[in-house]
């Protein structure tokens, strides 16, 4: 594997019972890139995200982050018989690696959610401050007895800075869920950034936005990539946004990647057109 790989997904299959949601997925995201994952509804995009972020352990396959294997699994137990995916033997017998989502985040991979998940009883500022918790060096005693004053002050300062950068200062003390929809999306991204990630996974950041908001979001994503030196991997349905900012695009259909390439290549790919139009005819 080449060094600039930030994320590499290798032969990942996710099977629920008899249903294969992600089918032998292989993809790479390189440093500094914005890569989009597109595909019809139910193609397994969010499931792929959930595998990468540790919400689900894959049924088979491995995930690498900056060259290190962070997730690996092979069909075990009941799945041994049920497994219908590819490469069933590749990982068998190797050590299964199944980190919890918080470990993945601490490695430097942050994410947002398709259906916004903010901390609803907390203010905008507190939502960001909570994300700083994982960077603490204090333990429960030093934190309770306020012996971590310096660190606490730093957490607060950094959160303030982030709020300012995200243009959320004016709603600082509002309840997170009282914000308008677009701002909630911004806040969710800000909260993810507060964990100081290197790789940011965005799950449909423009869902439910109007064209104007989508345009703003497009610029916003480009801006944070440059300002924070991020690599971005996102799921998105708004083709304008995808075509505008993606360096590369992966297309998923029925859990299988059917195409990969630059926006130009994808736009003219007959298989992609078929998957989308075919899907439209069915519905």
């Amino acid at each position, binding site marked *: 594997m080449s060094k600039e790989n930030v994320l590499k997904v290798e032969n990942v299959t996710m099977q629920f019972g008899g249903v294969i949601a992600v089918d032998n997925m292989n993809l790479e995201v390189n440093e500094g890139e914005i890569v989009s994952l597109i595909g019809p509804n139910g193609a397994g995009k969010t499931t792929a995200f959930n595998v990468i972020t540790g919400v689900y352990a894959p049924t088979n396959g491995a995930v690498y982050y900056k060259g290190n294997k962070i997730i690996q699994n092979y069909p075990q137990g009941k799945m041994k018989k049920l497994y219908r995916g590819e490469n069933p033997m590749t990982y068998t017998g190797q050590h299964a690696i199944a980190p*919890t989502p918080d470990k993945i*985040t601490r490695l430097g991979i942050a994410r947002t959610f398709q259906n916004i998940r903010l901390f609803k009883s907390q203010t905008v500022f507190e939502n960001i401050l909570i994300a700083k*918790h994982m960077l603490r060096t204090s333990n*429960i005693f030093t*934190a*309770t007895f306020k012996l971590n004053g310096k660190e606490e002050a730093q957490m607060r300062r950094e959160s303030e800075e982030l709020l300012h950068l995200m243009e959320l200062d004016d709603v600082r003390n509002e309840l997170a869920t009282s914000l308008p929809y677009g701002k909630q999306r911004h806040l969710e991204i800000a909260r993810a950034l507060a964990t100081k990630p290197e790789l940011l996974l965005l799950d449909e950041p423009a869902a439910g936005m109007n064209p104007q908001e989508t345009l703003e979001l497009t610029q916003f994503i480009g801006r944070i990539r440059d300002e924070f030196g991020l690599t971005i991997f996102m799921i998105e349905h708004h083709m304008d946004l995808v075509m505008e900012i993606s360096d590369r695009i992966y297309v998923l259909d029925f859990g299988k990647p059917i195409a990969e390439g630059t926006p130009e290549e994808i736009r003219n790919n007959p298989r992609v057109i078929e998957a989308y139009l075919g899907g439209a005819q069915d519905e």
Partner: protein
Amino acid sequence: MSTKKKTAWNAGLIAALLILLFLLEQVMPSSSMLFTVLKKGAIYALVAVSMNLLNGFTGLFSLGQAGFMLLGAYTYAILTIPVEARNSVYQYFDGGIIQFALPVPVALIAGGIVAAIFAYLIGLPVLRLKSDYLAIATLGFAEIIRAVFQWDKLGPITNGSNLLRNFPSFRSVLFPFIVAGICIALIVMLINSTYGRAFKAIRDDEIAAEAMGINLAHHKRLAFVISSFFAGISGGLLAMYQTTIQASMFKSAMTYEILLIVVIGGIGSVTGSCISSFLFIACSEWWLRFLDNENLYIGGFHVPLLRPGFRKVVFAIVIMMVVLFYRQGIMGTKEFSIEGIANFFKRKPVGKKKKGGASHE
């Protein structure tokens, strides 16, 4: 108001309260119901706040509080019974096997630690369970602990199902106030720390909290262990207050009572839990006591229905009213501000009749 000024205010208020209590003790007979309510209220305030830390702030619905209080109470009692009294207390078990006595503060803390250790071990398997299942599993554990402590074979330590007595107790109301006050202050400091924020994040959305790098298992276990530690200490205090203890006291009904206190005070409000525990104890033990009096006449009219037990019926109805019509409880998720606390104590001169309490509910 600046943080420093706030702290000064807080300290001043607490000092004033303690002095007031001290003075009251000098002028009023120690048999007054007021002191009963204050002592028991302080103990219940501590256990209610510890339960709130779990149910209100971390969103873990646990019903094991009575079990952890039992552990604290027994640890305290077993470690403090004077050596010379052991033969009469453990009369069926040849004086028991423990032949030393520890000082009161050490034994109280030991009670907390024993409860915390049990919580850690219980937490390993059960904290993976979700909401109702966690509630019923913790309730089950409390019942198991209660049964184990009544077991004859452990008699040399626990005195089986017999009473434990003769351990040191407290006379002044200041003692439970100071101990419970320190513990509650510690819990508040924890809630205001970065760990407290993480607990609240878990309560609001487990999946998002995990995605923010918060280790769920670790933090849930922390909250569970800390809550149980303080429940253990309150158990020790309860033992001191009651002067005798028995495992059969710590039924699930006790946990329900504490839960009701938490709910009436407002889930997610520390001051709410404190206020509501004093009101709860005062109502159930004191203010409604006249309802148990069969021979109550108003003018020449003999009030019907009144006889022992009626007080509890009325009390239960009041609680149902609160649950049905004041769902947020007294405080909701808010806390009293310092000015609010000042007003509260100004408004509620201690020792007055039921009006003051009732209007809060």
